[in-house]
């Protein structure tokens, strides 16, 4: 079954050592300027001068660039083509293709937008590659996030591969009893009914037992919780967070100021 339930890659790096909240702030400290700062080349510069070096700093460049080629580049590329072709306006016509017009303005606009998306998805990818979900949740819980909230997030992350596994078990069970899942489209839609029922109702029944199980482990105890994971919050982290907050504020101000 699924042994790997998170994107986290265990390495020793400066990025891994940062406090989870600092890294989360960093994600937004990259996204906000990329979208808000009016200077045209901001997202491009952020990508080249901050995001790419961060991947190397976190020693996850291999995993990151795999994600770039397989996911981020195709998605951003698609967005670029669509926006370049379909955004109306612009005077400098570069090419005409049947009813589509490619103008210099729409091309530039699409290029910036695609790179913005590139920066956004990249920051989250780097964050997930270098931060263990349990670490993030322990840290946020210790900062006052309710335990139930943290539990729901982690349990949801974990439950997706399990639901997939269970769905394939149910499909196999129903097919072994003659359910047709491979012929016409209408048949396939019909076949969904006996699959979704057991999956959904089975999960609801499980919730009761799961609730008993975590209750039996003192989940609702009012004592202050401790954490197995040791999470560091160094002065560097605090400094970085303040710096990032300033950057976010500055990009917001620049947006309002110059528009």
């Amino acid at each position, binding site marked *: 079954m699924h042994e790997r339930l998170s994107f986290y890659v265990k390495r020793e790096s400066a990025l891994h050592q940062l406090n989870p909240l600092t890294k989360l702030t960093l994600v937004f400290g990259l996204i906000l300027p990329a979208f808000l700062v009016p200077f045209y080349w901001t997202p491009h510069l952020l990508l080249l001068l901050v995001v790419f070096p961060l991947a190397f700093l976190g020693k996850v460049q291999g995993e990151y660039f795999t994600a770039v080629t397989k996911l981020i580049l195709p998605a951003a590329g698609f967005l670029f083509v669509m926006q370049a072709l379909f955004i109306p306006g612009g005077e400098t016509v570069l090419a005409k293709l049947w009813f589509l017009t490619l103008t210099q303005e729409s091309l530039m606009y699409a290029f910036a937008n695609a790179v913005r998306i590139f920066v956004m998805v990249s920051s989250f990818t780097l964050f997930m590659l270098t931060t263990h979900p349990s670490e993030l949740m322990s840290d946020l819980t210790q900062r006052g996030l309710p335990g139930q909230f943290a539990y729901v997030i982690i349990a949801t992350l974990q439950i997706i591969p399990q639901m997939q596994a269970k769905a394939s078990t149910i499909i196999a069970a129903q097919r072994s009893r003659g359910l047709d899942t491979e012929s016409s489209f209408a048949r396939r839609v019909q076949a969904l009914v006996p699959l979704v029922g057991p999956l959904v109702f089975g999960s609801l029944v499980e919730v009761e037992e799961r609730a008993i199980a*975590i209750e039996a482990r003192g989940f609702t105890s009012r004592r202050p919780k401790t954490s197995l994971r040791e999470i560091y919050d160094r002065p560097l982290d605090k400094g970085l967070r303040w710096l990032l907050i300033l950057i976010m504020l500055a990009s917001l101000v620049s947006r309002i100021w110059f528009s």
Partner: protein
Amino acid sequence: MPIVKLQQVTYHYPFTEKPALQDINLEVEEGEFVAVIGPNGAGKSTLCYTLAGFIPHFYKGELKGIVEVDGVLVQDSDLSDWVLKVGLVFQNPFNQISGAKYTVFEEVAFGLENSGVPRSEIIRRVEEVLQMTGIADLADRSPYSLSGGQQQRVALASILVMQPKVLVLDEPTSQMDPIGTREVFGVIRQMAEQGMTVVMAEHKVEWIAQFADRVIALWEGKIYLEGKPHEVLTDERLVEKGFGVSRYTTTARLALPRGLWQKERPLPVTLEEAVAGFSALRNARRKQG
């Protein structure tokens, strides 16, 4: 002074007419290992949930009578305090995984984190329990990637690590092979020797005969028989009520009228006892002629 005390306990699940437990009187001494047997639907799981406080705190319905552990009434206690005193391991191992942890080590530590145990002590206790339950080699695996039997060991370890005074187990070895079952019974016996009180619902009568101090036979929500393991497990009345009986007991019971089992010898529950009984008979016959 018994640590667990049930007096005239009757319980109805919500919207049911028939009581799931009826007039249960039970006292368990500290360090005693009590096994509960019974056919499906006899009330074994309900009894476990009652001892562990999930009745009446989690399942509503109507609970009458006295349920007392360590001098405290269940109604007077919060469930979150009660579970620190009475640990519950139930049957389905998959649903006992918290779902919030990525490794077996973290999973076992979950209960201690919730009860506010300091980090260094968590690590020490988790390591100790993983050794004891024989899953130290699985510490870094995801709990979801394990087999049913391994998950049951994780479930047991997760409760043992919290060091409850009373350990309640509802068929904790249902997905284990015979070797795993023996090991787990051994660990539970050892905990009882160290003073932990154990109440275990279980079908595997051969193991109960070897490890438990007392057996309670439940039938339709009532205590039907109670006593020393061998007396209860070889009682003829169990057969007619549809209890699971050891195949060795059945064999000897069939052999008895044919003169193949010595009349004065008690019926066997385990393989060893059956072998000893049949060999004794053979030796006696050889001597005669």
